[in-house]
């Protein structure tokens, strides 16, 4: 054997240097530890706390809307004082209703369904699952959260400008959103703040996506091959790629919208537009351009909200079924296929925009095709549960609930994917029921499953299972009672975005609207059980062991909560896939990912 040449001095120096730089020392000051933290775990929790505040805000807004829909003439106590011009005597004007709708949609889609499942859980869990000490760019990661918080505050500021929040919906269709004050109350400062908030939000999420991608590609532990990554990590990685593309397009759209509003340009405003008896000083713009740019982001956004749920469910179900996920490679391929196809279907939101029937067909076909990987995922989950020794924990129940609401919401998607049927249904409650099930409730169930599952790792304490099961059962009943009847309303021709149905042919729908309102208030009240459980468990919950669920992925091989550098100065070496359940291992019927192999090679 030839002599091995001595390594050059530069290599040694570099190694020593690298070790010094990589030494991950926890901060000591209060600000760096708890507020402006660079630690992905703290940032993940901050994102989840932000999402909690946002979801409560959004839910209160929906209660106000639902109450008004059910009892259009009854005053809401206190509302008159909060919005004297828009709710004189406590009865809201149609404009205020639209403002609440806009803010509800915007807050829920951006600050709950994007932040919690992706930025929240992803931040906390992904680096540990791949075996890294932190994200690739901790400073960008911290900026990502604080920029998102600023975006949230800018959006909330719209409540406090003289005209109140915008009324153009979470989709902010131009020219309504682009021409300013003349378009109605809330279309002045409120709409500008909306556009600004979303632009800032895009920057925050791009910084987050950058981190997710670089961390997954470059910071995986030794032995953590792509096919050994847990499905949740796969889902966050794929979601980051979707988000990178989607927010890269929404940001320019918002910048152009802001320019139309404040700089007098005409990107989205056509010529000769008369609004509020005033000829608008714009010409030549294209309102459809906004719709295209928005939905090129907007449809993938649906998958930004739901794919982390796919990952969380795929990760959690095998743990509680004590069985590997059926078709692991198929699952990853399906998620990737969904990500790709999500960029080919945006036009199905625009069937009513007067598009050429041929274009409508071109968007309809991939919309139907995307249901194939989604259906395969559902079958894989059912197949995983089938024949397993199911442990019905709260997290597991929410996974099963996820499958149920995703199927219920997904089936109505088949109808809406067809331009001819969508022409009738698009403007009705059918669509409201559809997207609340498939995107809203399903994603929320993913968030709940993730919370009950990872809470012990996050806070070192167990959540109360009894309260959890009550929470699950009542929530499942509540969401079905709320959103299922909306499909019937839609089929009956009940249009959406109206603030009241008292004086016309839709009067007959009022009893059902009252039922939905009761169900929505009930579902909201049930969430108090969850809140109590969160607070109580954080303070008084039973102490959590390192691996309470007997799971295999790396986050369960470290203490609960994990130390600052996640692995206590050690570098994990991965020798197994994420799904080694139902076999004999040293600790039971499973083998941890970081467990040494039989030959002791790892």
């Amino acid at each position, binding site marked *: 054997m030839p002599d091995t040449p001595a390594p*050059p*001095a*530069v290599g040694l*120096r*570099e190694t020593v*240097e690298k070790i*010094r*730089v990589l030494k991950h020392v926890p901060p000591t000051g209060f600000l760096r530890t708890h507020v402006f933290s660079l630690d992905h775990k703290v940032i993940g929790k901050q994102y989840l706390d932000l999402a909690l505040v946002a979801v409560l805000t959004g839910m209160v807004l929906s209660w106000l809307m639902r109450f008004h829909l059910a009892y259009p003439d009854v005053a809401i106590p206190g509302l008159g004082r909060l919005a004297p011009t828009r709710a004189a005597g406590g009865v809201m004007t149609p404009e205020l209703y639209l403002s609440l709708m806009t803010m509800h949609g915007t807050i829920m889609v951006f600050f709950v369904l994007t932040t919690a499942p992706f930025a929240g859980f992803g931040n906390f869990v992904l680096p540990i699952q791949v075996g890294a000490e932190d994200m*690739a*760019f901790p400073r960008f990661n911290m900026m990502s959260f604080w920029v998102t918080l600023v975006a949230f505050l800018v959006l909330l500021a719209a409540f406090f400008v003289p005209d109140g929040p915008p009324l153009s919906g979470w989709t902010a269709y131009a020219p309504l959103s682009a021409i300013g004050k003349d378009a109605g109350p809330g279309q002045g400062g409120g709409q500008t703040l909306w556009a600004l908030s979303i632009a800032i939000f895009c920057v925050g999420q*791009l910084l987050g*996506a*950058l981190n997710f*991608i*670089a*961390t997954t*590609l*470059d*910071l*995986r*532990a*030794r*032995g*953590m*091959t792509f096919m050994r990554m847990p499905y949740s990590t796969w889902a966050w990685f794929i979601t980051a790629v979707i988000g*990178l*593309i989607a927010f*890269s*397009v929404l*940001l*320019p*759209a918002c*910048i*152009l919208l802001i*320019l139309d509003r404040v*700089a*007098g*340009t*005409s*990107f989205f405003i*056509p*010529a000769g537009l008369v609004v509020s008896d005033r000829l608008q000083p714009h*010409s*030549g*713009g*294209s309102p*459809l*351009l906004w719709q*295209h*740019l928005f939905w*090129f982001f907007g449809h993938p956004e649906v998958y930004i909200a739901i794919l982390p749920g796919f990952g969380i469910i795929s990760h959690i179900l095998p743990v509680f079924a004590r069985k590997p996920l059926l078709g692991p490679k198929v699952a990853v391929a399906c998620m990737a296929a969904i990500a790709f196809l999500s960029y080919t279907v945006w036009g199905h939101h625009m069937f009513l925009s007067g598009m050429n029937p041929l274009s409508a067909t071109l968007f309809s076909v991939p919309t139907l095709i995307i249901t194939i990987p989604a259906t395969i995922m559902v079958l894989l989950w059912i197949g995983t549960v089938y024949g397993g020794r199911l442990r019905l924990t709260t997290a597991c129940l929410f996974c099963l609930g996820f499958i149920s609401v995703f199927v219920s919401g997904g089936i109505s998607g088949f109808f809406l994917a067809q331009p001819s049927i969508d022409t009738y249904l698009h403007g009705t409650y059918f669509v409201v029921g559809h997207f609340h099930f498939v995107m809203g409730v399903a994603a929320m169930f993913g968030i709940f499953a993730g919370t009950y599952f990872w809470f012990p790792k996050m806070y070192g304490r167990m959540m109360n299972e009894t309260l959890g099961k009550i929470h699950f059962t009542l929530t499942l009943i509540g969401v079905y009672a709320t959103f299922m009847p909306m499909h019937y309303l839609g089929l009956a021709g009940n249009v959406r975005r109206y603030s009241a149905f008292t004086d016309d042919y839709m009067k007959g729908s009022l009893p059902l609207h009252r039922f939905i309102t009761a169900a929505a208030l009930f579902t909201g009240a049930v969430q108090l059980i969850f809140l109590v459980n969160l607070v109580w468990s954080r303070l008084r919950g039973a102490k959590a062991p390192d691996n309470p669920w007997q799971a295999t992925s790396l986050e369960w091989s470290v203490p609960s909560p994990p130390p600052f550098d996640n692995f206590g100065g050690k570098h994990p*070496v991965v*020798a197994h896939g994420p799904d080694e359940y139902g076999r004999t291992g040293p600790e039971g019927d499973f083998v941890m990912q970081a467990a040494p*192999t039989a030959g002791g*090679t*790892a």
Partner: protein
Amino acid sequence: MDTLKLSPPSSPARTGVWVGIATITLSFAAYTSAMVVRQGSGADWQHVALPRILYFNTLLLLASSATLEAGRRRLEVDWALEALEGRAGAFSGPGVAWLSATMALGLLFIAGQVIAWRGLAARGLFLATNPASDFFYVFTALHGLHLLGGVTALGYVLARLRAASAGPPRAALGAASLYWHFMDVLWLYLLLVLATRL
């Protein structure tokens, strides 16, 4: 056979810049498609003659890429010598001068772009004057903003070089260079779009 496989070599900085390049490319693709749609949507598109100084600015930017490469090569040699001979002082050599020249050329480019704006303004063409001038200002301003990010990145590399305590900032310099060259390519693309479509 051992099931253990090595993960790919870590280079988060480089990956990060590539991801950033993807983001910026996509957003400029969005602006470009907006421009194509806007051009076809109204009858108000008016041709805007590009200010001549843009071509001079282009030369400045191309020169900055050349000085950056010269500086990077020089620093690599200095670092290698330093490591082999234990010689210090690489951080004040010509490499640093080349990097400083790159930053100066970048700032000159931006100053040149501002002169171009003033030229357009003197012709009565402002942001909202007509759709073609809209896009001229949007493209150039956003590119300039991104280039300032590159200047900041080079400033960071220079600061790391002066501090010298953390060893050669090889990864940072590599990532900053990649980004800087991309800014060149992006500008050439934008110039082509502006020259052919405005």
